[in-house]
């Protein structure tokens, strides 16, 4: 696509995600904060779409927007009293947040600067040209060769299994009490 159109779309998405992120952390109502977070995550999916990472965009929407945010909302529904869903904003909180944000920015800036230094400018592919094939993602996930991820995948499934069993153990009712 035209570079100008890409730039316009990028600027819109960036502006939206900055404004929404600030709203998400400064907003008093917990549920509104969760909603702003959802919109930020959707904007991130937009960035992935702009880079032609369609798979990642769909993962972003289904895992974060469809899963994590719904979990947040359920947690807010089930644990907090309806009159107490307002958060308090103290100065200490702001200072801690600012330190974390500046640290993160420094780290990202360092990585960007380092990569700018090492890769030649004409090789930079800021905007992806072609879609990643689903089949190659599947091969990478299920292969045992170099740069393929079967072992991490299986370890993660084991971790998930342990979490599920732990959840059942915690939630189950003791039938015969001694």
């Amino acid at each position: 696509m035209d570079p100008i159109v890409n730039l316009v779309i990028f600027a819109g998405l960036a502006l939206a995600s900055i404004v929404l992120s600030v709203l998400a952390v400064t907003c008093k109502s917990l549920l509104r904060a969760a909603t702003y977070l959802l919109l930020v995550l959707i904007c991130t999916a937009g960035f992935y779409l702009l880079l032609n990472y369609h798979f990642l965009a769909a993962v972003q929407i289904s895992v974060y927007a469809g899963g994590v945010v719904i979990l947040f909302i359920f947690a807010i529904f089930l644990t907090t009293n309806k009159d107490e869903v307002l958060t308090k904003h103290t100065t200490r909180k702001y200072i801690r947040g600012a330190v974390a944000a500046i640290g993160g920015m420094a780290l990202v800036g360092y990585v960007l600067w380092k990569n700018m230094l090492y890769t030649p400018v004409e090789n930079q592919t800021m905007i992806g040209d072609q879609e990643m094939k689903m089949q190659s993602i599947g091969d990478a996930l299920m292969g045992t060769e170099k740069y393929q991820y079967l072992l991490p995948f299986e370890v993660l499934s084991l971790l998930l299994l342990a979490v599920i069993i732990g959840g059942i153990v915690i939630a189950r009712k003791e039938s015969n009490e001694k």
Partner: protein
Amino acid sequence: MFHFEVVTQWIDEFLRTYLTDVWALLIEYVLIGVVILGVYAVLALVLIWLERKICAFFQCRLGPTRVGPLGLLQSVADMVKILLKELIKIDRVDPFLFRLAAFMVIIASICTFGAIPFDKGLLVIDFNIGVFYLLAVSSLGVVGILMAGWASNNKYTMIGAMRSGAQLISYELSCGLAMMTIVMLSGSLQLSEIVEQQAYAWNLWRGGIPAIIAFVIYLIAGHAETNRGPFDLPEAESELTAGYHTEYSGIQFGFFYLAEYLNMFIIAAIATTLFLGGWQPLYIPGWDAFNSTMAFIPPVMWFFAKAFACVLLSLWVRWTMPRLRIDQLLNLEWKILMPLALINILLMALWVIYL
């Protein structure tokens, strides 16, 4: 066979001869948006009329008869009424979330609607990851429903939203697993390719027993996802007034109503695409005269005929079965449908490897 590809390509070429690429694309975006919204609204009107007529048929009534022939214009009149109605301001609601919720629900529905291949070349976007995109985008609607329930500041809406959230999240699982079964059979997530593969045998026949089991699971789980029929506990009127959209009025209520009807159609359309061959005509090997006659019917007609057959099935279930209890509903999903869908995936793997 006449494909809509001809028309869409002609429009594209026509625009590109007179304009630069950027402007041509921009005009195409606007055109597509208008067409999608138009088809969405018209389909909703047709579905509402159909539902009222079929409901009347099941209850030995006539349904709407006064406005227009066979009451055809009844839903147009209802649309004008709902557009003119006042939006009532509710005291002590969260106004931002209250308004956003209605949009979330309908945006999720429209995003899903856009990816459905109505004909060759008649779909908005043909992602490599089509089926996954459908699953991802349709899960956004749940957030809208939960927000609507909370923002309305009413206990009925809250209970309705909680029930609906639990129901949608659980039935999404077996819905997705049933869709994955077909993805295994066709080896692709791209919707247009899945349809292309079914030219000589629909997936329902090609996949044999596992595909038929997956089809039944998909229809049940998909029907539950629309919050209708025996699964309408979130808006059980005898207990919860109208569930999560009790406090909404005017066109905001209209959004929920529209999304509900269109979700029914979308579920039917996805079932058509994945299991019943999409826009491909019926093909029986050996019957050449029959096949050429069937191929004469335009593919769009085939698509809508199959989709409306699935819609009819859904309406039939809705007006026949009594409402489930919440524990029965969750048992059905977690103890019957999901294990069955998982076993079915194994069966499909065996089917793909050995047959």
